[in-house]
């Protein structure tokens, strides 16, 4: 058998009706083929088209081999092997991540959060030094009212700075010392048995209820399940919007990323092993960071439609100039891009035999996009292997994980709105800087503010957890006290 099993539920329902006619009326009132009770009693009948499941010989197509596509392939093949189901999986991507420059790049800041590094280690996926360009052990927070360093809670390097591709467009081939992170993940998937197809999918249609894809080179293939992991920057997303009417792509906004070639010594001198985060009072700028890597420093600007005047204002800021050598001009370097990132998740990122993962579905706001790709890819793989591949299966098991991220993003939006208010109030901002400086200087103090900012910038915790931590009475009382001290010191013209 090389096909999915489609069990017709009609005969079940006929028998059920006969049994129900002998049951008490209260029970009958709670019964309907669509009710929760019927789903619990007869899971095989929960889909009107019959239960759709993966079984021996099923074929799975994965479109896009960025983190979401590769994680999905890796985990689905791992779980089907454990489950004793033998499936075939084709991973489509026209890009070769071994190619230098934009062709082999996935346009990203390239930070793997502390929590994801730990989860991958627990999964048996240890990031090698040939992929991680720099281990990050601290954050430098730069504000208009001063700068302060926040060390990792365990004084251990648990944040990874990577390049998604092989390297920026101006890298010399002889300087390539690190592999692409996306290529590393792609190889993990291939090691598990995925078949990598270097071709672009440019047509999607339906054949007898199954998705059929056609590639640019003319390959035509039907699948039992299609996982879509094309991100929000790919023109392929339009294909799926047309082929799957209930799906609405995520809303997104433009960002700015560029790569400064500084060399290892200069990077060590100006940035060290710290990620430099900027909370500056610039309109439309939510967050900015400079991330040291092996030979390069990556600059990321996040906010509402980042444009040239905003980039110029940021690069000319004295605080930013201090983090870069004087010979670096205040203008974008040759390797720069303006990729889009999600601001709102997709609507119904699933259907019968199709699921959207990573950025094409739902991702975390501003932070930990690779972590969200891992979570959504794994949730989709678990649903497909352990529950089924119908729309109802994805709604019941996959969608709650996406919704959790979506709801958390709403809290994140409120936190970033609050941060912007603080950015415009220098006296209050001074209080925050003071509080962090005191916590970092005296390790016996509870690091309330340091932890809130650490988690906010690193993406290590959910926005919900950050909010709860910020509502702690100890946090609030110390914050109020430090804000008062900040105000008094500024009025007196003395900075403590």
């Amino acid at each position, binding site marked *: 058998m090389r096909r999915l099993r489609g069990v017709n539920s009609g005969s079940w329902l006929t028998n059920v009706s006969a049994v129900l006619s002998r049951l008490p009326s209260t029970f009958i009132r709670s019964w309907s083929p669509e009710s929760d009770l019927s789903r619990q009693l007869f899971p095989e009948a929960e889909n009107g088209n019959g239960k759709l499941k993966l079984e021996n010989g099923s074929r799975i197509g994965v479109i896009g081999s960025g983190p979401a596509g590769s994680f999905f392939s890796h*985990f689905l093949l791992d*779980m089907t092997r*454990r489950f004793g189901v033998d499936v075939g999986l084709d991973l489509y991507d026209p890009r070769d991540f071994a190619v230098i420059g934009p062709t082999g790049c996935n346009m990203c800041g390239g930070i793997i959060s502390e*929590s994801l*590094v*730990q*989860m991958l*280690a*627990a*999964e*048996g996926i*240890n*990031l*090698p*030094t*040939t*992929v*991680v*360009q*720099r*281990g990050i052990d601290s954050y430098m927070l730069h504000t208009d009212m001063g700068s302060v360093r926040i060390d990792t809670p*365990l*004084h*251990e*390097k*648990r944040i*990874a700075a990577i390049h998604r591709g092989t390297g920026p467009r101006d890298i010399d081939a002889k300087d390539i010392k*690190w592999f692409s992170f996306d290529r590393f993940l792609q190889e993990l998937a291939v090691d598990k048995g995925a078949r990598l197809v270097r071709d672009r999918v440019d047509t999607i249609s339906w054949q007898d209820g199954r998705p059929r894809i056609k590639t640019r080179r003319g390959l035509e293939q039907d699948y039992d399940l299609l996982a879509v992991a094309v991100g929000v920057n790919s023109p392929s997303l339009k294909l799926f919007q047309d082929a799957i009417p209930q799906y609405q792509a995520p809303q997104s906004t433009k960002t700015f990323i560029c790569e400064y070639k500084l060399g*290892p010594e200069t990077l060590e001198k100006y940035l060290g*092993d710290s990620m430099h985060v900027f909370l500056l009072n610039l309109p439309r700028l939510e967050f900015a960071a400079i991330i040291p890597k*092996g030979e390069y420093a990556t600059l990321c600007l996040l906010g509402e439609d980042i444009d040239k005047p905003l980039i110029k204002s940021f690069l000319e800021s004295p605080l930013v100039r201090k983090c870069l050598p004087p010979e670096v001009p205040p203008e974008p370097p040759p390797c720069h891009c303006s990729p889009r990132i999600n601001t709102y998740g997709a609507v119904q990122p699933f259907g019968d035999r199709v699921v959207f993962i990573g950025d094409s579905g739902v991702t975390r706001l501003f932070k930990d996009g690779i972590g969200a790709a891992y*979570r959504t890819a*794994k*949730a989709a793989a*678990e649903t497909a292997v352990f529950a089924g591949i119908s729309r109802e299966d994805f709604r019941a098991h996959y969608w709650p*994980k996406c919704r959790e991220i979506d709801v958390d993003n709403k809290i994140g939006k409120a936190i970033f709105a609050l941060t912007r208010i603080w950015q415009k109030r220098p006296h209050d901002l001074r209080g925050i800087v003071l509080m962090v400086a005191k916590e970092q200087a005296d390790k016996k103090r509870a690091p309330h503010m340091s932890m809130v900012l650490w988690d906010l910038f690193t993406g290590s915790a959910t926005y919900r957890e950050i909010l709860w931590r910020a509502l702690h009475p100890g946090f609030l009382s110390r914050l109020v006290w430090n804000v008062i001290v900040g105000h008094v010191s500024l009025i007196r013209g003395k900075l403590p």
Partner: protein
Amino acid sequence: METGALGKVYQDGEIIVRQGEVGNAMYVIQAGKAEVVEEVNGKSVPLAVLGENDFFGEMALFENQVRSATVRALGAVRVLTVDKKTLLRRIQQDPTLAFRMLEHLCRRVRKLDTELGRIKTAQ
């Protein structure tokens, strides 16, 4: 330490976890080797040598007991700490995360069975 090295480096002989201490983390070896020893009547009994990708300290995550053995660096070893709270919270959300740990524990039980069988046969 290379710029891309994650975790923390322990030098030869340095103790990473100590028998009898309360543990709140598990460790994954990124590079190098570590030795597991049990202190019995003041003597160190070597139990195992762990290498790259092996993990230890996971028993403290699942039972509220002190560390059952000491683990120390055998040469320079680089180790990544996995927080108990972070891991347990994620396992609650995604139970399949525990698959690999269960696999590891099964392997350990199997090894102990073989060892026990060998001892009993010798007796």
